[in-house]
């Protein structure tokens, strides 16, 4: 009888241990680098680093960028609208998980 060894893929938790460059975040979120730059200028994302090429986005930026990309594509929001919507969505989520605080 042969023994089967199943290999389990080990992943990385994006929000805990990953940083993205502008290009990586663009690829993972589906948002273009131009869109991401606009959202940074609007203050919706705050990457580390000064120059665009040195930007490092936190792992949690992926979820926000993916949401921003869908809202832009589906509702035609501009950068200011995206920034506002992201803030409001985050506040709604906080209110949902902590209804008594």
């Amino acid at each position, binding site marked *: 009888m042969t023994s089967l060894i199943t290999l*389990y893929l*080990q*992943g990385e*938790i*994006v929000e805990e*241990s990953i940083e993205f460059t502008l290009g990586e975040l663009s690829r993972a979120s589906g948002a273009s680098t131009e869109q991401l730059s606009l959202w940074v200028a609007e203050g919706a994302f705050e990457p580390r680093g000064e120059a665009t090429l040195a930007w490092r986005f936190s792992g949690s930026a992926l*979820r926000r960028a993916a*949401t921003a990309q869908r809202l832009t594509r*589906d509702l035609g929001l501009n950068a200011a609208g995206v920034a506002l919507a992201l803030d409001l969505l985050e506040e709604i989520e906080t209110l949902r998980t902590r209804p008594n605080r």
Partner: protein
Amino acid sequence: MKYKDYYEAMGLPRTATQAEIKAAHRKLARKFHPDLNQKADAEARFKDVGEAYQVLKDPEKRAAYDRLGEKPDNAEDFRPPPNWNDGFEYSGRGDKSGTQGDFSDFFESMFGGGEGAQRYHPSMHAAGQDHHAKVVIDLRDSFTGAQRAITLQMPVADAQGHVTMQSRTLNVSIPKGIRAGQRLRLAGQGGAALGKGPSGDLYLEIEWREQTRYRVDGRDVSLDLPIAPWEAALGADVTVPTPDGSVSMTVPRNSANGRRLRLKGRGIPRATPATPTGDLYVVLDVVLPPADTDAEKAAYGALRDAFKFDPRANFTGDST
């Protein structure tokens, strides 16, 4: 194939102007957008509205659609009449804006493939796409770590560039400390590259399986612990369930209903050495047993006589 009433989907009369169609689409897209609306049917409604808009916003497609008439007799098993679109010319995938192509059979047979349909040129070299999927895990999986076989539907392009959906099963380790809303990145497990590019990554978005006992807030977990009035008054040693087995806890004497007791470090475990461990909060829920038998009534009576307790003592004076 089922006939789709695009006017009904958008809540508009068949006489609606193009401006009214646009406004209705904007309004309904905001209302049912899956990022903005948590209800279960929101995504389906959103897709219906998007599909309706793809047809009604385009005067030529709209005119062709209108020629089918209102609610055809064979709406449940609809076949377009022969030459139904004579005299109309459109490519079927003119502009790339709007929703991704994921349209009904009705739409596909009338107007061709959805606009998101992709055709790769076989000589192209490009990095594989990043893929995203959702995975539902138990809260317990985050406490202990887990191993899961996950089946995904993935688009795969063949040598001719045709894209088909294939199912693929991956064995994945769910790391300790991962939480709902986070993503797990599996490098190189996304879409295969075209030509000589690198493979894409696979992102698994974590969701909790529905459960009623625990509430999760970041890394902290809380649960309501029912206790008897005498346990609250006299103190007690109780057993508390956690997602990772039971622990013993002491309820302090004279605990009020709603008191929060913290079990430090018993929340969601650390995912990396740099992250903190969560705490478990036990919220006391004092449950009053009903007084049904004579003995039970006598016991409550003895309480009343022993305490001379007036819970409304501060309701004195005028009520304003």
